């Protein structure tokens, strides 16, 4: 074993070569893996989808709070927050009318 580690007197040259190569290659593989995981997490967390030509039929509410929207094609999209960029009158009368939130 000691003979093997000594590498005929060249151990000080041979082993750093193999050690560094192993360390660098392992680090690179782990870095690639971490990169992949982080990208995946971010894609899940921050991803946004922009739908054009997709009219909203109404805003869904539960207990007085917005919980999502229904599209005119019938798809429902759940959301914690609904931001409406049309004016308040349209927002409340057209999209929320059925929920009686305007009668004040």
């Amino acid at each position: 074993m000691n003979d093997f580690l000594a590498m005929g007197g060249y151990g000080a040259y041979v082993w750093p070569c193999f050690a560094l190569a192993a360390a660098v290659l392992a680090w690179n593989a782990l870095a690639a893996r971490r990169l992949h995981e982080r990208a995946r997490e971010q894609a899940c967390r921050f991803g946004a989808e922009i739908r054009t030509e997709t009219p909203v039929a109404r805003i869904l509410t539960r207990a007085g709070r917005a919980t999502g929207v229904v599209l005119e094609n019938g798809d429902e999209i759940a959301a914690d927050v609904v931001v409406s960029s049309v004016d308040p009158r349209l927002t409340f009368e057209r999209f929320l009318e059925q929920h009686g939130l305007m009668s004040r």
Partner: protein
Amino acid sequence: MRWFWYASPQTFFPLAGRIALWCGLAAVPLALAGLYVGFFVAPTDAQQGEAYRIIFIHVPAAWMSMFLYVVMAFWAAIGLAFNTRLSGMMAAAIAPTGALFTFIALWTGSLWGKPTWGTWWVWDARLTSELILLFLYAGVMALRASIDDRDRADRAAAVLAIVGVVNLPVIHYSVYWWNTLHQPATLTKLGKPSMAGDMLWPLLVMLLGFTLYFGAVLLMRLRAEILRRERDAAWLRAGLAR
């Protein structure tokens, strides 16, 4: 054959994941087998003693450093010519691994040079051109990182990568063109190898292991790159939701 089918990130993404796994699983036993034969079966060198065993890292790493540059420049050229989305990502995913292999080749070369040539470093044509290769990799990565617009970054990095290809024949032929301290090629003479078979074949096993390792890491980085660039795409969101 639909050549551009897999040029789309959408079709390539799941395939890349499967290939990466298999490449990684194959690379580890190959590298271990190469190391085992390299240390326990290959005989001691008559002139260099045990120091020559550095070759089992040095030559595959040096070969990979050049091979990866060719692959990177190839994808860069494809990206410029056909404007395929995946090509720029491919080139971006190759560069870090290529730079690391170049670094390993230089490091092991230095540690091999000291006991056999009596010096850690000389400004020899082979050594200098390999160092330039490291700078080229670093340049391509830095240039890409310094431009925010992804398409423009891809194009700029691609042009630099393609121009840098001129360095590859210089590295390869440096040992013939100039009077270098570095020995001439070992691997290009497979027909009439200048090594004993017991020394040659662990070298080739290590090379295969490194190549598969590269495949695995490249595809992992590529998937990360696809996730970053296409995370708003409907196909990706549908895939992630599953």
